[in-house]
Structure formats: C-alpha cells, structure tokens
C-alpha cells in the first residue's frame, strides 16, 4: 500500500497541476482582459515549475531541479515585461 501511495499520489498531483494549467490556459485564450491573460500566463509558469518538481519526485532524479530553479528565478521576467507593456505601452523606456 505504501509502496503504491507515492506513485498514485504523484500521478494525481500531476493531473491536478495539468488541470490547473488548463484553467489558466482558458484565461489566456479568452481573457477577457489583457491583464487576465498575463496573470494566468505567470501562474502557468509556476504550475509548470511545480510539474517539473513532481517529475523529479516521480523519477527520483534531481536532474530536473535546474529547470525548476530557472522557472522560479527567471519565469517572472517575461510576465513582468508583458505587464509593463500593458502599463506603459513600452517595455523599456
């Protein structure tokens, strides 16, 4: 039972995370506001990062850590750019 609990729960978690991405994707596609799109894109980055961590747990391998780390540190750069574009009409002034 305990041997199976981890695989099952990780699979369930992955499905949930993917479902979350789906919800966010809905907002990215439909809006209605441009801010919604960017907000949900940013949230998708986080979900993707979590997904990477679960893949790591599932495979028992640390090699996906770098991907998650980069998502965490740099993932916001593009959303910041999008948000600034919305706010100022220009990314770099």
């Amino acid at each position, binding site marked *: 039972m305990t041997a199976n609990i981890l695989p099952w*729960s990780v699979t369930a978690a992955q499905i949930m995370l993917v479902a979350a991405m789906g*919800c966010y994707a809905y907002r990215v596609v439909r809006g209605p*506001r441009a801010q919604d799109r960017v907000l949900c894109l940013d949230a998708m980055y*986080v979900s993707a990062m*979590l997904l990477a961590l679960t893949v790591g747990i599932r495979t028992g391998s640390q090699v996906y*850590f770098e991907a998650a780390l980069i998502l*965490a540190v740099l993932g916001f750069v593009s959303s910041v750019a999008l948000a600034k574009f919305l*706010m100022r009409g220009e990314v770099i002034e």
Partner: protein
Amino acid sequence: MTHAMDLPAWAAVLTALLVVLGAGLTLLGAIGTLQFGSFFERVHAPTLGTSWGTGAIVLASIVCFSALGLRPVVHELLIGVFITATTPVTLMLLARAALYRDRTEGDANVPPRSLLRSPGGSLSRDRSSDGPGESPSRDPQTPEVRPMTPI
C-alpha cells in the same frame, strides 16, 4: 518508479500528502481564476499556487530526496524563496495596469486617483463589473475601438 521502493514508508506517505496538497491548492487557485467575476478578484486566485501550493510541493521534494539520499537536501527551499520574491512584481504591475485602464475608462467601481493623493480617503465597493461576457476589446491593442476619455 523504481525508487519508490527505496523510500521509507513515513517519507512516502508524507511526500504523497504534501504533493497532493500542493497540487490541490494550485488547482483550486486555478479554478478560482475561472470562478471569480472581476480581474481584481482573479488576482488573488493564483497566489494559492505560489504560496502554499509551491511550499507543499517543495517540502515534498525535500522530504523525498532527503529520505532517498539519507542526508538533508534543502536547496529546493531556494525555489520557494525566489517564487515568493518574484511573484509580487508581476501582480503589482498588472494590478496597476488594470486600475489605470479602469480609471481612464471612467469605471466607477475602482477608487479614484485622488484617494491616494489625500491620506485617509474613502473607498468604494467592487461590484464585479468586468465579467467574462465582456468584449475582448479591452486589450490595449484596440484602443481605437473604445474611445478614450483622458482625465
């Protein structure tokens, strides 16, 4: 998933719980973005994922790999720290942009600029004005579709 056998039972259970918790919170947040009626409400939803959603899964990872490697593995904490530090930037800018847009369009549901200019001003209620039925023309790409009313 060969390594699942190597994991002590307590660690497996703990990891499983944390993983499901984090993913569940994240999913709830995502559902929130669908559920909430206005942008300013929707801003709150993803924070479920960026706060304890992330926290739980990071902890799960720490538990899992520490138990596997039999030594503390804590570098995942960095992920939590950086997520917490960077998420606000986007949200602040987005909220500001939305506020600005609503104000220029004369939306009465958002507090006016004057509120912050005079300390202790009044506040107004948000009545979920921008539901999903709205036209997508509120993207800044189509300003000419909706005429501007500069303040």
